[in-house]
C-alpha cells in the first residue's frame, strides 16, 4: 500500500513540476489563477413600460441585458438575436427570427457573420444558467469580427420561453 502511495505521489509531483516548467516556457503568458469573466449589465431606462431600451453608441465590451430589455429590443427591431447553441438544440426551439451561429463551429459560419451589417445590434443567447457560449460568441463578435453593438441575453432561451415571448 505504501508503495502505491509513493508511486502516486511521485507521478503527481513530477506532473506538477513539468506543468509549471511548461508554463514558464510558454510564449503566451497568462495568470495561473484564472478570473471569471463577468460582464456589466445594461439597464432599461424605463423597465415598467418597456419603452426605453436604447444602448450607448459605443460599448467597450459586450454587456449583459435582462429579459425585459431583450424583449424591448426585439419589439423595436434593428436587432438580430444570435443563438450560440448547438444546431440540434436550435432546430428544436429558438427565439423567433433568431439566427444560429453555434460558438463551437463559428468558423463554419464566417460567411454569415460577414454578411451582417456592422451597425446592427446583436444579442447573443444560449441556454442560460451556466451556459457561457453566448459570452464566448459575443466576445468573438465584438473583439474579432468588429461588431460594436453586441449584447448578451443572460437568461437565455429558457427564460425567454418562460416569459412567453415569441419562439419558433
Amino acid at each position: 500500500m505504501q508503495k502505491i502511495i509513493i508511486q502516486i505521489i511521485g507521478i503527481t509531483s513530477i506532473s506538477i513540476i513539468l506543468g509549471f516548467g511548461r508554463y514558464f516556457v510558454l510564449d503566451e503568458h497568462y495568470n495561473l489563477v484564472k478570473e471569471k469573466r463577468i460582464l456589466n449589465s445594461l439597464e432599461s431606462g424605463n423597465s415598467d413600460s418597456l419603452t426605453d431600451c436604447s444602448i450607448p453608441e459605443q460599448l467597450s465590451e459586450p454587456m449583459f441585458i435582462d429579459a425585459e430589455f431583450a424583449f424591448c429590443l426585439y419589439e423595436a427591431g434593428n436587432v438580430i438575436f444570435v443563438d450560440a447553441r448547438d444546431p440540434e438544440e436550435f432546430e428544436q426551439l429558438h427565439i423567433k427570427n433568431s439566427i444560429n451561429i453555434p460558438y463551437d463551429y463559428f468558423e463554419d459560419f464566417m460567411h454569415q457573420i460577414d454578411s451582417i451589417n456592422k451597425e446592427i445590434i446583436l444579442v447573443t443567447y444560449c441556454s442560460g444558467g451556466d451556459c457561457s457560449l453566448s459570452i464566448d460568441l459575443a466576445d468573438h463578435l465584438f473583439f474579432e469580427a468588429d461588431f460594436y453593438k453586441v449584447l448578451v441575453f443572460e437568461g437565455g432561451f429558457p427564460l425567454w420561453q418562460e416569459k412567453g415571448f415569441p419562439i419558433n
Partner: protein
Amino acid sequence: MAGERISNKLKNIWSNPLLLLGFRLVVGIVFIYASIDKISDPLGFSDNVDNYHATPVYLNNLIALIVPWMELIVGLCLIFGKFIQGASLLSAVLMIVFIVLIGQALFRGIDLHCGCFKTATDVSVTSLRSEMIRRILEDIVLLGMSLIITMNALKKEEIPL
C-alpha cells in the same frame, strides 16, 4: 462447481500476460495521445475545462497545466511497465473523473466539445450530445482495462514489458 470453473476460467483470462500487455499498450497510447495537444495548448485546454462548469474557474488554468502531464506520465509508465501499480490506479481514477465530468455535463444539458484529445473544436462533429455519449462509452471501456491492469498489478510487484 460449474460456477467455480467459469470463475477460474475468467480469472485466467484476465490475468493472461498477453492480454494485460495489450490493455497496457492501449490505455498507455490513448493517454499519451490525449496529452500531447493539451500540453502544447494549456490555455485552450483551460477553456475546455471551463465549459464543464464543474470546477472553480480560478483553478482551471492550474488543472489544465498539470493534468495533461499526469496523462503523459501515466501513459509512459503503463507502456514501459514502470510504477505500474500507481500508474494503473491513477489511470482508473482519471477515467472515473472524465466519465463523471462528461456525464454531469450531459445530465445538466451542457453541450460541449469534451477536449479529450484536441483542444480545438472538431468541425466534423455534427452532434455534440452523441459525441459526449460516445466518449463516455469509450472511457468506460478504458476504465475496465485500467481496473484489470490495477488488480493484476496489485498481485505482482512489477510487470515486465
